[in-house]
């Protein structure tokens, strides 16, 4: 079942249609029988009328050589094909079978056997419904004929007045059911909207007030799940905090001891330098893992605020000046002053990682270009280097955790662990931005473009000062 509403509408309309139309057919057949009886009753009444008028003149008519032709006044205008009138004709026949009188449309011969009852007879190119009835006082027979097709259509036209509205009503019923079910499933839609609109970190219980009885068990289960999830997040957060503290301290101590060892040992053995490199790599890896954990959507607790991205980029560039001068790299920064709605710390991590990568992969005396552009309602951050770049078929994979291009064989001397771009992607996703890796405009190198939604003017009117400062 893909949609409860569609399922219910189709099934209800089908059942109503079936029941309604079956009733209509049954009603139609029953009504046609009743109409038949009514028409027959009318023919019998005509017999009474003829009995009132004709038997007294039986002797007079039986002596005539030719039958009298009765010209009935027209009941309908010529050419009128309406079904309101059924053509009624009659013959008066003597006991000996001589035709005494007939109406205009009747033939000069007696149309049927003089046998009392209803019969079907064909004449004048039509099928006629005929009543043969004996006249009173032994004064012959009356043969009353009604065109069967006209009689049938007359009956049907009356019955159709009752049946046709049923057919017309079905689409209206379908629409009403659709509308009513829409109202009925609105609480489900509201509940869905509430879940959808919630921040990843909003684990408050769902309000069950005014909730339909059918949804309360679902809400209770969801609340129980949220409670367990919240407890689990708290445990994980505590663990992450504790782990950060517990790991950072011994690594820092190891680092100091290693530095001391290098000073004390003369000459310094090669393995001592390798030990120092290993400690640095471990320290970097732990910092990156903690950063990844900190910026994951589940644990991202801070509220978004307007952030001056341009100022943030400048601040990161200043912070990286040592690394830049160490490799004699030229850096160029240009662009508009751009504001985005986001978390300043996470954005700083993003810029840091992008710039760090550019520095790491650029060869000595290389060039790095950083831009922040405002394009309509979008802000684009560009970081371009003239390093080796990333082959097109690897550009999606570099966002995978611990994935290192060519095993990270670069001569930057900076330790890498394959988490930098995963963190960047996580921050990008967190800000609902887009990231694109392409070739730089240098002969070689990489251009990273991150596209954010620009801050709306309303939110800029009262920007967070703390973020501004950054």
């Amino acid at each position, binding site marked *: *079942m893909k949609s409860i509403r569609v*399922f219910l509408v*189709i099934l209800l*309309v089908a059942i109503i249609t079936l029941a309604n139309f079956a009733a209509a057919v049954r009603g*139609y057949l029953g009504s046609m029988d009743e109409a038949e009886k009514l028409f027959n009753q009318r023919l019998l009444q005509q017999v009474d009328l003829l009995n009132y008028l004709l038997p007294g003149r039986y002797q007079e008519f039986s002596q005539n050589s030719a039958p009298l032709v009765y010209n009935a006044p027209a009941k309908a205008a010529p050419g009128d*094909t309406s079904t309101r009138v059924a053509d009624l004709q009659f013959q008066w026949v003597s006991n000996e079978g001589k035709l005494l009188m007939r109406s205009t449309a009747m033939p000069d011969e007696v149309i049927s056997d003089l046998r009392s009852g209803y019969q079907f007879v064909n004449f004048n190119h039509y099928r006629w419904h005929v009543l043969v009835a004996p006249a009173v006082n032994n004064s012959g027979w009356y043969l009353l004929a009604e065109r069967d097709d006209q009689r049938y259509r007359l009956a049907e036209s009356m019955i159709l007045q009752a049946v046709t509205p049923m*057919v017309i009503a079905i689409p209206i019923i379908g629409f009403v059911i659709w509308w009513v079910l829409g109202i009925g499933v609105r609480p489900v839609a509201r509940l869905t909207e509430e879940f959808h609109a919630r921040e990843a970190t909003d684990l408050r219980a769902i309000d069950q007030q005014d909730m339909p009885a059918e949804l309360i068990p679902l809400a209770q289960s969801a609340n129980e799940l949220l409670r367990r999830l919240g407890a689990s997040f708290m445990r994980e957060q505590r663990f992450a905090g504790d782990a950060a503290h517990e790991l950072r301290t011994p690594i820092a101590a190891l680092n100091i001891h290693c530095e001391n060892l290098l000073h004390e040992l003369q000459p310094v053995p090669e393995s001592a330098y390798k030990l120092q490199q290993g400690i640095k790599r471990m320290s970097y890896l732990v910092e990156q893992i903690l950063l990844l954990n900190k910026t994951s959507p589940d644990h991202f607790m801070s509220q978004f605020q307007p952030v001056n991205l341009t100022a943030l980029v400048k601040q990161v560039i200043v912070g990286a000046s040592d690394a830049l001068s160490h490799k004699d790299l030229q850096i160029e920064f240009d662009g508009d002053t751009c504001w985005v709605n986001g978390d300043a710390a996470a954005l700083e991590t993003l810029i840091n990682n992008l710039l760090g990568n550019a520095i790491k992969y650029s060869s000595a005396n290389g060039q790095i270009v950083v831009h922040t552009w405002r394009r309509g309602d979008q802000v684009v951050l560009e970081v371009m280097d003239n390093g080796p770049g990333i082959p097109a078929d690897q550009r999606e994979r570099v966002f995978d955790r611990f994935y290192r291009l060519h095993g990270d064989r670069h001569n930057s001397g900076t330790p890498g662990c394959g988490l930098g771009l995963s963190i960047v992607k996580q921050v990008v996703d967190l800000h609902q931005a887009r990231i694109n890796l392409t070739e730089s405009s240098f002969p070689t190198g990489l251009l990273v473009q991150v596209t954010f939604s620009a801050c709306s003017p309303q939110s800029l009117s009262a920007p967070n000062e703390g973020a501004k400062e950054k």
Partner: protein
Amino acid sequence: MMVDAILLVLREVLEAALIITILMVMSRKLGFSLHWILVALVMGTLSSWALAHYAYTIADALGGTGQEWTNALLYFMVVLAFIVIAAFIAPLLFNTPHQLRHLAREDTPRLNRQLLVAAAIFAVGLSLAREVAEIWIYLGGFAQQPDKLESALTGGAIGLGIGASLGAITYYLLVFISVRRFIYLLFSFLILLSGGLATQIAKQLLQIGVLDSAAPLWDTSRLVNEHSWLGELLYALIGYDSSPSAIQVIFYWLAVTPLIVIGIWQWRRRKLAHA
């Protein structure tokens, strides 16, 4: 008049609704998109209109036998489409319930989805072309008779409503049965429908004298009259004929045998694989 229109439209709609319903459920159970049904409906409606529009030209063609040849050809192509569908479905007949439960999510290598969908489009499109063309012709005949038109249209709408409603109810009844049961049901329906359509091919060819007519092999009209409600329903479901000739029975078995052979072959294959 109205009852005649109901019966005629219902007879045509019921058969088309059954084919559409069962193939839509097949799509759903096997995890296909249902978009193909739109293509089949458009194809069927346009073809039916063309068949109705050129009905007299078609009828006059081939020395006045064009209509029968066209019908026979359409029936034959639908039977072929059913055989193709049955050939793809047959391997699933003897799968374990566990394998079938995962069918919708897995791309079973035995199942060439595109061919199966194409066969389904042809089966629905060609069935609609034949059935709806008769409705067009019937209702078109009343366009010049306004006094009868309302009755014919009302009857047509009731027939359409009953047929479509039965189709919708059948759809949901079939949707909620297990995949395993449905595959058996589908295969059985394909056998019955193919057999019924094959007898119709023989009937068309008998009408134009291509095949020699002979005395009916049996007569079950006392049991179930062809023109009763039950007879009409059975005609739509399995092409019921109360007094079939020997040639109709031969045609029936010609259509049904390949399907039975496919089924038995799959059963033996599965048995050997388990041995």
